[in-house]
């Protein structure tokens, strides 16, 4: 009944922090993966796994920004696709240099975020619906740009992506850059305000926080990370596909939730989402290398993810104090 506070609370708080769930799942996944695939820790294998993981990690970071601020971004998958088809078609059909194409591709993605942010924060339409409609629109645009899978980016680009730099896998460096980019936002006022607005928009407003601006920025952030993911994915697969990003919207949300971020907003962390995203990639690996018959792979990986989600949910419910609905 009485609230007691002691010095070791900080330690327990770290262990009870929601991000832990994502990382525990990741470690469990890593162990399981290492058992079924002994070559897991060979540099080339790490390299290819991270190459697969980097785009999802980036989308998940951006999605975390939108979710923390109390919203959601279903258009991230479409943005990944948009960047991919734009870069590839500029490179192979319009003879644009790769780097210029890359900049244009990312800029287009960010522009989508600006439109999302404008409609959600200024016109004030629920985020789920706006980004859902935007998904349909942007997928249409991508299909118009590149109706069939195809095209090619310069070979040296995807060779760099699959290679190592100073002994470190290049995709790992990209992930680190992505996380650093997030850190730049997180420890400024904007990062704080994302969490404040997502946790209690009314209170934030009363404290003079520019709620509209913060919401707007969260969608620009989300789109920026999604378009960077699109760029990475382009480097990974080296060609264009108008359906390439379809799975990212929902997978990034799964990563965010597995990483202990509340979909209602206001609490959670990017580090958890990164853990969650890596876990999702590992699950695919495990199922593949554990010699699960091919028809069973979808089922098994689906079951693992659902169990992970349920565990996250139960742990949350246990930590009780967060549940304000059944307050004292």
């Amino acid at each position: 009944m009485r609230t007691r506070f002691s010095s070791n609370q900080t330690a327990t708080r770290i262990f009870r922090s929601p991000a832990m769930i994502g990382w525990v799942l990741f470690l469990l996944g890593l162990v399981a993966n290492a058992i079924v695939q002994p070559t897991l820790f060979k540099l080339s294998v790490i390299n290819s796994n991270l190459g697969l993981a980097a785009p999802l990690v980036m989308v998940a970071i951006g999605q975390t920004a939108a979710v923390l601020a109390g919203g959601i971004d279903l258009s991230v998958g479409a943005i990944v696709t948009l960047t991919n088809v734009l870069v590839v078609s500029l490179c192979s059909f319009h003879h644009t240099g790769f780097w210029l194409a890359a900049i244009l591709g990312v800029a287009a993605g960010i522009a989508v975020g600006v439109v999302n942010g404008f409609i959600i924060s200024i016109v004030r339409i629920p985020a789920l619906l706006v980004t859902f409609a935007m998904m349909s629109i942007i997928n249409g645009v991508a299909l118009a740009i590149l109706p069939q899978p195809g095209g090619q980016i310069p070979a040296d680009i995807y060779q760099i992506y699959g290679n190592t730099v100073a002994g470190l896998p290049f995709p790992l460096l990209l992930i680190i850059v992505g996380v650093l980019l997030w850190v730049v936002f997180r420890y400024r006022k904007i990062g704080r305000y994302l969490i404040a607005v997502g946790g209690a928009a009314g209170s934030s407003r009363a404290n003079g926080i520019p709620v509209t601006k913060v919401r707007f920025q969260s969608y620009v952030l989300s789109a920026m990370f999604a378009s960077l993911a699109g760029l990475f994915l382009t480097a990974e697969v080296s060609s264009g596909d108008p359906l390439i990003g379809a799975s990212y919207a929902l997978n990034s949300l799964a990563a965010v939730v597995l990483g202990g971020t509340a979909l209602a907003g206001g609490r959670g962390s990017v580090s958890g989402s990164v853990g969650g995203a890596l876990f999702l990639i590992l699950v695919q690996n495990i199922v593949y290398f554990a010699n699960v018959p091919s028809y069973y792979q979808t089922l098994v990986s689906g079951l693992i993810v659902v169990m992970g989600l349920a565990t996250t949910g139960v742990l949350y419910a246990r930590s009780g104090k967060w549940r304000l609905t059944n307050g004292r």
Partner: protein
Amino acid sequence: MAFTERVKQRLGQSSRNSLGIAVGVAVLLTAVGGAFNRGFVSPSNLLNLLAISSLLGLAAAGQTLVVLSGGEGIDLSIGAVISLSAVLTSQISNGQNGLLLPAVVVTLVVGVLLGLVNGLGIYLAQVPPLIMTLGMSSVIEGIVLVYTQGQPKGQAPPFLAALGTGQVLGIPWLIIVWAMFTLIIWYVLKYLVYGRLLFLVGDNRSAGRMSGVPVAKLVVGTYALSGFFSACTGILFLGYTNTTYLNIGDVYILPSVAAVVVGGTALSGGRGGYIGTVVGAILLTVLDSLLTTLHMGEATRGIINGVVLLVLLSIYTRQPKDA
């Protein structure tokens, strides 16, 4: 200024008005279709449009209940359940009328059970509905793969095929079936204890719990009902297409949510109803058909679908300003 304010308020607040708008837009779209092509407004084409709407409408029935139940309720697994149901009915009945009944019973039971799993994960394990039903989709898709070994067999028994494509007195059976479902759902929502409590609990779950409503039973049951309606949709879809292939239900996932919202049901729960969803389903079907009539490619259709959705939602889901 005062007038526009009042108009905005009306538009923003009353779900009955958004229903009016949806009806208006649906009629307008039909008229536009008629202007481009006389055949578009012929009775047979209109009935055909209604028949196509009926499948989306049924798929969105469970979605409506789930969204109404609040707690950010949404069911993204309906696509997978529809696919599984079509596959189950087709493989068990193997095209024979005699085996149709057991096939239907098994399919409905499976649909309800999957819905129950959704509901339990959401209510007991506190997984957000969006994520739980999404996770279940991939599990169910996995079940379909395992069950069919990648190649669905069988076909619709003649009776089911007749139901899916046949007519009585010139009216497709599908429309009649849908009308019956609509009547029942409308009655349940308006007059039965379940329906009334659904609106209240959807508005404020904690208040519902404290006033003695069996919230767990209600919410979990609603997800089970959604599974039931998805199973029905899958069975009728099989009748409509006669054979089945993998993931046929996927096309219904997002349109079902769109139909619910366009019909004026609040995504936050507690406000709306199935009649709105019926109009929403018709509107979306007419729009899609119109775009096809105008020979728009898939890309343009996607873009216009999205823009129309965005405009409609801007009209009636605008949030009040904080101050």
